């Protein structure tokens, strides 16, 4: 693992997962009028675990219990609708809009934290 990766920590991975989430949610919004379409969202904890191996617990002692292998498990979940439509569509545009805003905000936050880490490193290299 390079020095850069260590300095940036989890934030690039978090941003990637949020970008993925933005894509899934925009797919939901696009299909707001598609019959039988079921809205999906990313299980953030699961996706983050799948995205970065470093986030998983290491088994270094015989007493340690290995984390169940969840890489194959689906990080995408179907949203449970509050009021499903008669045509089987479970997209609720207001909820998707809120989720989209949430993901965008979190993406920006991850970006901001990465910026902070990079500017810290730059300061250290410059020595000023």
């Amino acid at each position: 693992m390079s020095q850069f990766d260590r300095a940036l920590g989890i934030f690039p991975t978090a941003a990637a997962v949020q970008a993925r989430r933005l894509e899934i949610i925009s797919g939901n919004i696009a299909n707001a009028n598609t019959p039988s379409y079921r809205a999906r969202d990313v299980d953030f904890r699961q996706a983050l675990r799948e995205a970065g191996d470093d986030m998983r617990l290491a088994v270094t002692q015989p007493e340690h219990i290995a984390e169940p292998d969840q890489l194959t498990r689906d990080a995408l979940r179907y949203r449970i609708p509050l009021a499903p439509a008669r045509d089987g569509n479970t997209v609720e545009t207001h909820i998707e809009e809120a989720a989209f805003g949430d993901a965008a905000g979190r993406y920006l936050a991850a970006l901001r934290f990465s910026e902070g880490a990079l500017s810290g490193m730059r300061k250290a290299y410059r020595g000023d």
Partner: protein
Amino acid sequence: MSLTNVFKLAGGALNAQTVRLNTIASNLANVETVSGSAQSAYRAKRPVFTAVLENATNELQSGFGVKVQTIAETRRVNQQLFDPENPLANQEGYVYRSNVNPLEEMTDMLDAARSYETALTTASTARELMMRTIDMNTK
């Protein structure tokens, strides 16, 4: 990259909603259209959307886009109108009106406009996030 896919998905949604608005315009334009037979009478048209995978082999790798599968005609009965003066009237003096319900079309139009707006907003948010990523500022 996921953010570029948002543009594709939003673009597909804008396209689908435009088709929907077009059919609504066509329906509204033909509210007063009459015809000499039940077969040739105008029937309200509705686009049928379907979810499609944009550019992935696996549905877990990408969001679903939307596509207009077909444009279906409503099956509501066309009303008969007794109008013997009409040159299109049949031998009994009846014409067949279009089966468009203007109120239904107007509410559908509002819904289509809202969906269009939402898709546009997702695209512009994605654009903003992308620009912020490109301009990542490290002073």
